[in-house]
């Protein structure tokens, strides 16, 4: 059974067709890369998969179960997590609180108005473990506003990983990082165990190509080429659309 199946997904904003009949079939444990020039509809495709946008037609299935009609807030509970291209964190809080919120989101405890959040040691400990995985445990208590851009990128990933997802959607995890930071994040992503399926949007070809097993090339909302790494890179249409030479 596929981890993630997208079938004939379409979305238009007025006359602008941003997603046109996209099909995706991602196997469990697969590392899938989605590439395409600016405006190809990559992030829109993510928003359709996570349910933040409602598709005009088509369907999304998670491990064989049709989730097209499932509200986006229910999808993390079914094992889907995502990161954002534009960093979307809680600036007034500490790093560990950011990750704690990610953990709390999946617990029934999140409705409790009476207990003290800081005394929930099981949440704080899990949050610290998630931060250890991304190498930020030593600055867990630091307010997010006092962290660097690269650290914030890693907090984004820590929050997604903390939810123990089965399918992880990464929207440009390398965007805006220095070469050193890129290497760190790459190590981090390579260390994610194979029971997590990863779909990643990325512009940075040198780090992304190494990571990906299969690649989907989007152009004007359509899948142009799909195949393994060598096939897609060798395909003349890839060069024409994306690599530009």
């Amino acid at each position: 059974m596929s981890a993630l199946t997208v079938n004939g997904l379409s979305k238009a904003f007025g006359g602008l067709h941003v997603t046109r009949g996209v099909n995706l079939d991602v196997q469990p444990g697969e590392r899938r890369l989605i590439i395409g020039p600016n405006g190809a509809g990559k992030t829109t495709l993510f928003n359709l998969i996570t349910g933040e946008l409602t598709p005009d037609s088509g369907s999304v299935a998670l491990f064989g179960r049709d989730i097209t009609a499932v509200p986006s807030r229910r999808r993390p509970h079914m094992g889907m997590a995502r990161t954002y291209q534009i960093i979307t964190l809680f600036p007034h809080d500490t790093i560990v609180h950011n990750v704690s919120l990610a953990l709390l989101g999946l617990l029934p405890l999140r409705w409790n108005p009476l207990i003290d959040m800081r005394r929930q040691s099981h949440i704080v400990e899990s949050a610290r473990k998630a931060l250890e995985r991304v190498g930020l445990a030593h600055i867990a208590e630091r307010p997010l506003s006092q962290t660097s851009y690269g650290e914030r990128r890693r907090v984004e990933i820590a929050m997604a990983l903390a939810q123990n997802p089965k399918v992880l959607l990464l929207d440009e995890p390398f965007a805006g990082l220095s070469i050193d930071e890129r290497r760190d994040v790459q190590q981090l992503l390579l260390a994610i165990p194979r029971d997590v399926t990863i779909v990643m949007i990325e512009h940075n070809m040198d780090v992304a190509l190494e990571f990906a097993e299969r690649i989907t090339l989007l152009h004007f909302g359509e899948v142009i080429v799909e195949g393994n790494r060598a096939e897609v890179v060798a395909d003349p249409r890839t060069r024409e659309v994306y690599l530009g030479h």
Partner: protein
Amino acid sequence: MNPRAITLTVAAVLLLSVPYWVPGVYYVNVASQILFFAIFALGLNVLVGYGGLVSLGHAGLFGVAAYAAGYMLHLGYGHTLSIIVALVIGIVSMAMFAVLSLRSTGIGFIMITLALGQILWGLAYRWISVTGGDNGITLHGRPAPFGFELDTANSFYYMTLVIFVITIISVAIFVRSPLGAALMGTRDQPRRMNALGYHVWAIRFWACLFSGLLTAVSAILFVYYNQFISPQTLALTSSAEVLLMVISGGAGTLFGPIVGAALVVVVKNVVSGYIERWNMLLGAIFVAIVILMPEGLVPGSMRLWRLLWRRRAKAAAEGKP
């Protein structure tokens, strides 16, 4: 003892001894007003400060609960039943308010709550058979819970103080709870909260109900204190006033709305006896707050205090090399 404990102890002693150190009964009554308006401001702060939802219709909700209590008492029902009915009506109205206004946030939320508040104000004027229209409802007598008479200024003050303390504790517990953390999360990043598995609308709805409960509690105290309720209570200026209490004191802080309530009530009741244009004075104070401490009096004073403290420490360190 840490500074926080010392501050709280001093505040508790000052509050408990108010009837002994203020110059007269009039000032005990002013203190009672500060306390129940502080409860109102704390209720609004749950939405404005912690939820990022600015309501300009809270005086309407306040008025609904106040009229409910007033009308029940006017019809001759007992105090217990009247209070319960007023609380229920207050919360149910807040729920209806929330269902209509939570369709939107930001400016949209402000405009819908403003419109709903104005509708209730209009109703208070026009539904004369219930509200008495312009004449309002006049009551006779305050309740006597467990045989504790509330007719004197002092006894009413102490009862208000007890409810005020319960309110502060309940808000403090809520703010530190997972639901409180979730509410602040929806204020800062609603989209991310949704993607993390939170039901953003429902979290805001519960926050509205909590805010509505505190609003109704303060409204009932208001009715018992004044033993009179008129449409003026529901006017837009009243909504703006309580919002100013929250913002001037410090939205999103526990003690800010209390300081804000004290400021507004004192200027309105005490200073107005000496200065005819007290409204202008209040305006000038708000302008000063916005310029000097845009985050509000409580967080602003703490910032200045820390700054002074650091400078003094630095000067001391330089003086003794």
